[in-house]
């Protein structure tokens, strides 16, 4: 009997605002504990929240990027529960009326086909602080620097049918939030956190199975492994005649398994109600249009344009639009070098390899788009051969200046003077009468030998095309 997996994801992404969502305290990561928490973040008596306008702008930008409805009126609610890193005893979130309504994103499946995943909603909320259990013997430390950091919680429909699809969706959301600049998406620092709701059902069954919620998935790899484990666990349970219990489960990457954290019965009654300290969030069309006005061309649109305008393959276009920095870099290279195909080859080839080798981000490349474009220009105008161009690239990478400077300094300028090439050919042919005779008697293979010898004699600088033509003419029987 075949099983079907059903997955929905809840993604918390930290919004890239300078100050917190309801206070003026800074959001910088990594400050000394409790140095970035003001009276509001500490939940002192009598303090009041004031909504950070920029957080709303960023939420609206996201809504637009996933073609979602933006609510003209949304409500902040209190989610009540006690925890030491939750200073007010409630989290300000959005419950019944979120700012971003139904939207969708498209993912590319393994077979190259496209699938649309529904986004149920995205709402604004504040983050809690951090409890530090490791650093104090028998005590718990509380760091409230993170308390009040703005989050956008993005909730998907249960539209994913495999761990791979879930990862593709999570990567897509990750790509979008970074692309439109609303979040740095840093998973190590907790700026992008994924929870997965997972259930299984027999194929053909319309009703959803009982789901579990998986937490502590702080990389795409763990997301995939946790879901894979959980799906097998659930299937084994049901096949053994048992039942899945609705609960929250923690992924343990060391053991590659999920463990029960709390069951539904143990779950809090959050007693949501509208926060009387905050007025309803009312957005007019002008605000929404202004927030979305400078949205960049989105990754899917850009990928499609690269495919059609530049004639890229789906694969190349996908690679080049993995993130906005790369796509922008590519377009700058193509413009400076005047050849999109060559630009794609160099960006996806030499540049990607060098970045990867040195563990650098796109923005940290020592070779600027203008420099790479300059190199491509010299390939196109035959100043250098494609082979020597790799040497030039390495030299640029190592800080020896732009392509022209490297070519001049190293004397790599291609030899295109026919007379000069002919003189080399004459010498080589004269020195190898036996091979010349073989070629003339129909042994074509020997031609390669002559090309090699001529290139070697010119120290690789002779224009290969000219060498071919002139050699053929010289050896003609």
């Amino acid at each position, binding site marked *: 009997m075949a099983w079907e997996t059903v997955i929905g994801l809840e993604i918390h992404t930290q919004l890239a605002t300078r100050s917190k969502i309801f206070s003026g305290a800074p959001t910088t990561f990594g400050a000394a504990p409790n140095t970035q928490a003001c009276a509001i973040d500490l939940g002192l008596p009598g303090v009041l929240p*004031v909504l950070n306008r920029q957080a709303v702008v960023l939420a609206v930008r996201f809504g637009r990027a996933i073609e979602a409805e933006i609510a003209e009126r949304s409500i902040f609610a*209190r989610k009540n529960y006690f925890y030491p890193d939750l200073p007010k005893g409630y989290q300000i979130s959005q419950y019944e009326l979120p700012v971003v309504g139904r939207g969708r994103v498209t993912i590319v499946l393994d077979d190259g086909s496209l699938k649309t995943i529904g986004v149920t909603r995205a709402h604004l909320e504040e983050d809690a602080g951090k409890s530090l259990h490791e650093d104090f013997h028998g005590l718990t430390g*509380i760091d409230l620097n993170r308390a009040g950091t703005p989050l956008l919680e993005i909730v998907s429909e249960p539209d994913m049918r495999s761990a791979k699809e879930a990862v593709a969706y999570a990567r897509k959301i990750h790509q979008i939030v970074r692309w439109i600049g609303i979040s740095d998406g840093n998973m190590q620092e907790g700026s992008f956190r994924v929870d997965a709701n997972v259930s299984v059902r027999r194929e053909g069954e319309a009703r959803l199975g009982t789901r579990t919620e998986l937490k502590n998935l702080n990389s795409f790899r763990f997301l995939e492994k946790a879901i894979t484990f959980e799906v097998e666990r659930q299937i084994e349970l049901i096949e053994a005649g048992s039942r899945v219990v609705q609960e929250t489960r923690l992924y343990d990457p060391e053991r590659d398994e999920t463990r029960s954290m709390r069951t539904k019965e143990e779950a809090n009654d959050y007693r949501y*109600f509208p926060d009387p300290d905050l007025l309803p969030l009312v957005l007019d069309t002008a605000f929404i249009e202004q927030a979305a006005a400078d949205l960049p061309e989105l990754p899917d649109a850009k990928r499609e344009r690269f495919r059609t305008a530049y004639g890229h393959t789906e694969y190349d276009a996908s690679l080049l639009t993995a993130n906005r920095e790369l796509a922008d870099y590519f377009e700058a290279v193509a413009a400076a070098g005047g050849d999109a195909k060559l630009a794609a080859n160099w960006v996806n080839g030499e540049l990607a390899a060098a970045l990867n080798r040195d563990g650098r981000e796109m923005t940290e490349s020592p070779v600027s788009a203008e420099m790479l474009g300059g190199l491509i220009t010299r390939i196109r105008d035959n100043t250098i051969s494609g082979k020597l161009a790799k040497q030039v690239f390495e030299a640029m990478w190592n800080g020896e200046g732009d392509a022209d400077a490297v070519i001049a300094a190293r004397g790599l300028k291609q030899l295109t003077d026919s007379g000069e090439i002919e003189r080399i050919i004459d010498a080589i042919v004269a020195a190898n009468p036996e091979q010349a005779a073989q070629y003339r008697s129909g042994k074509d293979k020997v031609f390669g030998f002559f090309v090699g010898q001529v290139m070697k004699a010119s120290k690789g600088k002779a224009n290969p095309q000219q060498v071919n033509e002139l050699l053929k003419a010289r050896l003609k029987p």
Partner: protein
Amino acid sequence: MAYHIEPKPLHELTIAELAQRLRGGKLTSVELTHHYLERIKRLDPQLNAFVTVAADAALAAATHADARLARGEGGPLTGIPIAHKDIFCTRGLRTSCGSRMLDNFIAPYDATAVERLAAAGAVVLGKTNMDEFAMGSSNETSFYGPVKNPWDLDRVPGGSSGGSAAAVAARLCAAATGTDTGGSIRQPAALCGITGIKPTYGRVSRWGMIAFASSLDQAGPMTRSAEDAALLLQAMAGFDPRDSTSAEEAVPDYGAQLGTDLAGLRIGLPREYFGAGLDAGVAASIQGAIREYERLGARIIDISLPNSPLSVPVYYVVAPAECSSNLARFDGVRYGHRCEAPRDLEDLYKCSRAEGFGSEVKRRIMIGTYALSAGYYDAYYLKAQQIRHLISDDFRRAFEQVDVIMGPTSPTTAFPLGAKMDDPVAMYLNDIYTIATNLAGLPGISIPVAPVDGMPVGLQIIGDYFQEGRLLNIAHRLQQATDWHLAAPPEV
């Protein structure tokens, strides 16, 4: 033949009169502050109106005020000694909210109301006693013990701003601040024989005011006259970017409106405010004041606020629901009371809160938690919000016919200490005439009218949104025509 007129003692002068003397160099703020501090020292042990007296800080502020006055700077409040209800956070001066929970709490900031009055030059004598977290109508739920009514030490002063009301009535300060969630300015003002105004919701910033029920809480002045109230409200009111619910509405010149003639004023008397439960003596006293208004040219119109009987039950869903959440921050983790040697986290929460909160606060937290719980939310909280709209609609319709609504502030005069402590519902019914205005967000003022058996009675005047100027004007005209507001309690 020469005769001698006994000059009025300093503590009988209005703020306007004091300001004139301060400005004219006939009096210094330091002298005035010493005078009030001496009265507090002598009289407050019997009243228990103050939780904290800040003599040194007050004298320093008075010295500063005198320097400003000497330079010809400052306004009508410069150098005037006042007191703040202990619900307003004061930087460096303990803010207890009448609770053991905050017995050790010193805020690192001033409430906006405190800040604005300080900017106007007012001198803070100290912090006044109150029902714990403003939950009470008799000032008997305070961790610091009950406040006594200066008119009769065996009676309650009302609550929750009972300390402020008693202090102003007993002339322990020139004026005081209060807060009103369901009547907590107006009811104690009525029971102590002073003037107290609850402004429109959003008129005075709630920043730094410890929250009881955020959608109902509103700060206002408690004074001996409407004229004094106008001076304080002028300083307190106005938009504050730190409070999202504060109104971006210009503050009119309240003083300039005080003299407006009342001819043609349409006064609505809701029949629901004069029914069963209203003490006959209080009813007669209110009718006497109404007749006075008729003499001043007002027209009386009978009206109905049909949903007003629902206001107490609605209030006791909404206010506890909000308080159950607002008071969750008092958990013993970061500040406030923490129990000794908790076994674990849960024990820390339970013991700290069990020890830190009194029984009325606990009762309301439990009611509110219940009302918001899954499965009950629709039946209680949501239903209450719907009725709240109906109550607002009643007022909206009434204000199509009348300019203001009048009635008693409280159904009885001050009752004996302990009389209602075992019967919460009887206690809650004290606020039957005041609660609806909080639910609707409307302004209301209570002013003294003819006493009953030597105990003060308050007339409540309710206005439309942002009509504080009109309420103060109407109150002031009565105080010009009568002497009820001048009556002082016996020196204890």
